[in-house]
Every structure is written in C-alpha cells, then in structure tokens.
C-alpha cells in the first residue's frame, strides 16, 4: 500500500513538469513575452530591454526553463505586476477561500447525493427513481452561474435571508490564523463569527454543489443498481441478514467504489464551477483572483494559479486512487 502511494506520487512529477513546460511556453508565446508579463502592457522599451537581460532572456531556452523550475521548487512563483506582491503570498490568502467553498459544496453534494441515489435505486423505475433521474438531468444541464444568480436573487435579494456577497460581513473582523474563515472563527471561539461565515457560505456552496450533487446521485444510483444484481447480494439475503445490514455492508460498500472515483473526477469541474460561483458572489478566492489577473494581464498570477489548480487536481486524483485501492482489497493486496 505504501509502495503504491509512493509510486503514484512519483507519477505526479512528470505531469506537473509537463504543466510547468506548458505554462512556461504559454507565457513565452504571449504577445510581448515574459517581459510584458512582468511589467504589464504599458512598459517602456528600455524597461523591457532591461528586464530581459535581468531575466536572462538572452540565454538559451533550456537555461531559462531550468531557472523557472528552480524558482518554482523553491516556492517562488514570481511577483504580481498588479499588487507587486509575491504570488505565493496572495495564493495563501486566496487558496483557502476557494478550498473552503469547494469543500462545503462537495460535502453538500455527497451528503445529499449518495442517499438520494441509493433511494432511487431501491425504488428502481418507481416515481422517486424517475423524478430523481429527471431532476439530476436538469441539474447536470444547469450552468453553475445561472443557478448562482437564481439563488442569489431568491434567497439574498428577494427574501433577504442571506448575504449577497463576500465571505464575511465587511463590518466584522475575525482573526485569520489559517484563512479558512470557518476554521478561523472556530479556533478563535468567535461563535458569532462562525454563524456569519456560515451564512455567507451557504448560497455559494449550494450553487457550486448542485451539479456535483446531481452527478453523485446518478452515479450512486447506477452503482447501487449494479451491485443489487450481484450474486453476493443474493448470498447475503440468503443468509437471512437484515435488509439494513445487506444494504450497508454488502451493497453500499461495493457501490462506493465507482462513486469515489467519480467524486474524485469532479475536482476539475468543481474548481471550474468555483471560478464562476466566486464571480457571482464576489467571493475572494482563486477564481476571482485569476480572472482579475487575466483582465490586467498579470501573467505571474495566471501561471501560479493554473499550476496550483493542476497540483490540486493531481493530488485529489491521487487521493481517489489511494482510497479506491484502500476500499478494494484486490488492488490493496496486490501492490
């Protein structure tokens, strides 16, 4: 098992290297190249020349790439041309915001999606099954930004139950040891802060979580239907086990295998959705940060952001593979 994890970790290296080459080439392919990327569009010709020698852009390309990777490994993602801050410092602010949102959304999707899919499968072809199939089909077809706008309109604007923008009320100051606001508020025992942060989190999380919810429900349904037809489920029933035991121990555990995989594959989609959801709710996370960067041609931020997203996706895929292997003895014991 350990060897398996290590091997999968090693497999990450070429992928991340590939992404870094892609990003390296990306910036060099941009009109103006890295000098503009660093200085911004309105740079004077002298400053461009100066920075090009400074950056060693007159050196061979592999030397340049080598330097780029060395900086990356040392955690130097460059400097934002807009804020003049190291990209890594900004990332430390933005990343927790996005992860908090994505995590809450996924939790929402899993907690509702799995039971829903299970019930639908148990009532195969019944009303609940057809209804949930249809609703999840609509869910999959719903652009996350449209849903976000609708939720915002109904619950924030019309009903006024929940705030429309941000992670926390602007008048409230909470301490930020981690920048995961919910965690921060809990750690500092600021209970009012917890409530406030939760209130801000609810709508974006539901907006972002609804599509994954639909997908999780569909996959769970399909997986449970498959497993219900398995011989070993019949064996379990033939033993006289209670239906709840059969469902939990024999059906759900096996059905979870494909579900875990699919949940993991949602990460990319979830991050995409996060970018869009953040736009609607002015959520100060990676998404709005990167879109801003694109608007201002802040390439160091774009590069760093995409690299980080790629890392995130790769790590979740790794986590999925590991949990799949853990859940499936055939793989667990063979490596």
């Amino acid at each position, binding site marked *: 098992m350990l060897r398996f994890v290590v091997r999968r970790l090693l497999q990450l290296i070429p992928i991340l290297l590939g992404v870094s080459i892609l990003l390296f080439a990306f910036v060099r392919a941009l009109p103006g190249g890295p000098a503009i990327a660093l200085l911004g569009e309105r740079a004077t010709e002298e400053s461009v020349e100066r920075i090009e020698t400074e950056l060693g852009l007159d050196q061979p390309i592999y030397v340049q790439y080598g330097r780029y990777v060395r900086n990356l490994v040392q955690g130097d993602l460059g400097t934002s041309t807009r804020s003049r801050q190291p990209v890594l410092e900004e990332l430390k602010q933005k990343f927790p915001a996005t992860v908090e949102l994505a995590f809450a959304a996924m939790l929402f999707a899993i907690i509702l999606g799995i039971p829903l899919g299970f019930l639908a499968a148990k009532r*195969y072809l019944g009303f609940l099954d057809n209804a949930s199939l249809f609703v999840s089909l609509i869910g999959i077809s719903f652009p996350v930004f449209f849903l976000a706008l609708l939720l915002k309109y109904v619950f924030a604007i019309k009903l006024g139950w929940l705030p429309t923008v941000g992670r926390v009320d602007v008048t409230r100051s909470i301490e930020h040891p981690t920048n995961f606001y919910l965690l921060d508020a809990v750690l500092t025992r600021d209970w009012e802060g917890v409530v406030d942060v939760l209130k801000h989190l609810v709508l974006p999380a539901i907006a972002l979580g609804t599509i994954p919810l639909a997908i999780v429900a569909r996959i769970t349904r399909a997986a449970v239907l498959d497993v*219900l*037809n*398995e*011989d*070993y489920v*019949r*064996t*379990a*029933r*033939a*033993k*006289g*086990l*209670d*239906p709840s*035991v059969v469902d939990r*121990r*024999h059906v759900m*555990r*096996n059905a979870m*295998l494909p579900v875990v995989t699919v949940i993991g594959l949602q990460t990319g989609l979830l991050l995409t959705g996060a970018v869009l959801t953040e736009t609607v709710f002015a959520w100060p996370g990676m998404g709005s940060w990167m879109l801003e960067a694109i608007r201002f041609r802040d390439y160091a931020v774009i590069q760093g952001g995409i690299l980080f997203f790629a890392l995130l996706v790769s790590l979740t895929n790794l986590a999925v593979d590991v949990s799949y292997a853990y*859940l*499936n*003895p*055939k793989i667990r*014991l063979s490596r």
Partner: protein
Amino acid sequence: MSEPLLSVTDLEVRFKSRRGTIHAVNGISFDLRAGETLGIVGESGCGKSVTSLAMLGILPRQAYPADGSVMFGGRDLLRLKDQEMREVRGKDIAMIFQDPMTSLNPILTIGRQLTESLRRHLKMDKETAREEAVSLLDRVGISDAGDRLRSYPHQFSGGMRQRVMIAMAISCRPKILIADEPTTALDVTIQAQILELLKRLVSEEQMALILITHDLGVVAGVCDRTNVMYAGGFVETGATESLFATPRHPYTAGLLDSVPRLDASGKQRLVPIPGTVKTLMEKPTSCAFAPRCMYAVDESRREVPPLREIAPGHHVACFNPVPESDLPQGAITEAR
C-alpha cells in the same frame, strides 16, 4: 411414513418483463423428508433456480410474489412476514449457489462473511464465531483455517470458494440445504471433490439436501429421489434408481441418452434432444415438450398432461409414455 419436512404445493412464479409476463415456474409440487436427498434436474432455463429462490423468498425484484404454498414446520413460508422469513433463511434452510466466483462479496474477508450468519442466527460473540468459523473451514477441507479467515475471495480458487460457500451454508446447521448447480462452474476434477464433500456433510449433519443440476451424472451419485423439470413443471419424478432404469417420459429418456458416459466404449452415442427450451410468455395449455417430442400425440397438443403414478412412487406427466421395451438396456444406474 413420517410427516414431510418441507411440502411444496402448486408453486408458481412469474416475472414482469418488457415483453410481457414470463411464466418461469408453473405449479410444481413435491415433498422433502428429513435427511432425504432430492435431485431436481433439467436444462438451463427450465426454472430450477427460480424454484429454489422462491422457496427462500429471495426472488429478484422483477418477480411477482410466488403463488402456491411452501409448508415448513407448520408454516407457509410464502406467507411469512419478512422478518419471520429472515429467521428461516440461512438458519433452517440454507443455500449454495452456482458461481462461487461471484457469490462471495469481494471486499469483505472470508472470516467476516462466514461469521455473519453465526452472529446473526446463533447470536455468537465475535470470538466464539471466529473459532466456529475456523472449525467450519476445517470441516470443508480448507487448511490453515485460522489464517484463511483474513483472506479475501480473490485469493481463493474457484473450488476453495465453493468450499467456503458450503461452510457458510452449513454454519447454522440448517435442516435443509439447497445446492443450486454447485459444481457447474468448476473443473471436472474439482466437481467430484465438492460432491463428495456435500454428500459427507449432509449425512454427518442429517440435513435434507435439494441438489439442483442439469447433469444427470451428478444426481445419480447423490440423490435418493429425482424430479425431472421441463419448462417450469415436473415431467417425471421417482426414486433415482427406478427413474434411471426405466425413464418413462420421453424427455427423461432423451436426457439419459444424451448423458456422455465416462465408461463409454467408443461407439456410445451422444444424442442431443433436438430443439431448445423456449421462454414461456403464457401459461402452457399443452405439453410443453410436445414440439420437441417424437412420442407426442394429439392430446399432448391440446392439454397439459398431469403427473400420474405409473409405478409405486414413480410419476410421469405424459399422455404417451415411452414403453419400457423401447428403453436402452443397462442405463446409467451402473454409474453409481
């Protein structure tokens, strides 16, 4: 004679399907006495598995509730509440399935799967159940039982898995064991071992056995009585010996003719019965075998032949049974 242990009357099972209702089992009746071994033989698709699943109340969800009655211990199993029926399943009546490769849960240890009925029905604690599981594995001929409890099904061969299935089935000392084609999925050499094991356990435990198979060679060695099934009904029933010596239903006779004989001298024929079994979309109104039968008479095409006793304990559902003189000499009984 004593009261039968199990008494099945007019059992009928139908399935919903997109093309209409499938009549899988059409009113079969039989008795099973304590300690007796009964064979049910028939081609694939004739309703053997469905019969056994119906008796245990674990029909697939596409099935309508079974009709008829299955009397056991003074109660009709088909009318029991779910919860009462669960007390019977695995405890009084246990079942072994055809495919040991798929009948065990791939992600639970053998130990877990073995102990779960012990803990459920005999209320054993974890430790006792574990010890019992070790001795069960021992009894079905799996060595290193203690270590094997921690193994997963994929680490076992097919034969070993079937042994585990058997251990699971007998774990609560059931009064009846239903074995649905327990050897069909196994290699020939393993088949014999598994049958031997079953025979031994059944006699040691004084269990009644219903052995389901499409292979007459299997019942010949094991069963006291044999019921031959065709298209959801019994066409011939009787003591195995007399059925093999004097098969009177053309279908049985055909089956016996098509049994490949291990001891066959080169010239022995293998006569397949022409045609195939059709899925029944309606309840039969004539002899279901008639279209494939060279003995069929007009009546066979008009009416369903009832089971009639033609010799003591030997019943045939046929309007024109095979005359004894037509039978090949020295039938399979030799194989015993």
